[in-house]
């Protein structure tokens, strides 16, 4: 997504992040220092009611965050970026929010699975598994695959 934005707008974003409360839903490879700054900003946004947009500039990053319901979309740009260009980023918010909800919903669907732990297996169980997969291999070989 960051590549698409940079190409379409002719800018050089450092990162695009989407948070659900304080959890990261979407992120590109952002250096740890910037990630910590972003987390700090999101924490602030989540604590203050009614904030829709936040713009923060430091020596090494310009952070532009947009709230959309429970989600916060954050763009990390070089501080030399003309601030007027930030409004152009708004057009990508809906798409990022939509992508993020898809991920969140898929994660919810498989949430019970994440806690699955393996049962104690007997030697017979292991042999059943081995026989099954060897049988599948033989089937493929018989088909000439």
């Amino acid at each position: 997504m960051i590549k698409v934005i940079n190409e379409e707008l002719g800018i050089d974003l450092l990162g695009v992040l989407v948070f659900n409360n304080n959890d990261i839903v979407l992120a590109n490879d952002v250096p740890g220092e910037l990630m910590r700054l972003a987390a700090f900003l999101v924490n602030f946004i989540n604590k203050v009611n009614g904030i829709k947009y936040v713009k923060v500039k430091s020596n090494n990053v310009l952070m532009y965050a947009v709230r959309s319901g429970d989600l916060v979309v954050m763009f990390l740009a070089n501080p030399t970026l003309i601030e007027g260009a930030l409004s152009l980023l708004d057009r990508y918010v809906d798409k990022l929010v939509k992508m993020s909800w898809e991920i969140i919903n898929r994660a919810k669907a498989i949430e019970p699975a994440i806690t699955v732990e393996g049962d104690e297996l007997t030697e017979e169980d292991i042999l059943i598994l081995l026989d099954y997969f060897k049988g599948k291999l033989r089937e493929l070989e018989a088909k000439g695959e």
Partner: protein
Amino acid sequence: MVKVFKLVIAGPYGAGKTTFVKTLSEVVPIETDVPAQGKSTTVAFDYGKIRINDIVVHLFGIPGQERFNFLWRIIAKGMHAYIFMVDSSSFESVKSAIFMYNYFTSTFPTTPHIVAANKQDIAKVKISDVRTILGVKPDVKVVPLIAINKKMVLEALVVLLDEVHRLMYGSSLQRGNSHGTGNEKALM
């Protein structure tokens, strides 16, 4: 009673874990991939399963990027075994796996595992070099893999299950196994 066999597919970004789960799962696997760097990457985990009599094999593909390493331990908890997958199409890709491999072998030192050198159809790194770069112990097998090739995926799984059996019950069931430990030149 239905029993759970938990299998984890680990490895760095772009190693082919999602493809492996898709190739093996008999149900439509759940993927959590998003576009990244012109490809796609897993941000939560991939999940598939296979039912064999009263045993359900749960397959988990772990997100490869280090910023998701808080998920590695959570997903790996209670696993029976893991396949550590690397992209053998470039030295850089294999080297990018060192941190994650060290994490897994030090965090789960007694869990049976094999290393799968994926993308053998376009491989640039020999299996013996994969072993050297990752520092794979001599008793751990390194197998060739093309994750879109179901036969190779099944072969890797059979090798892993044989390792599980060997470590649990002290004997290998594989006869004439070409996936030796330390003599991988024969595979190339």
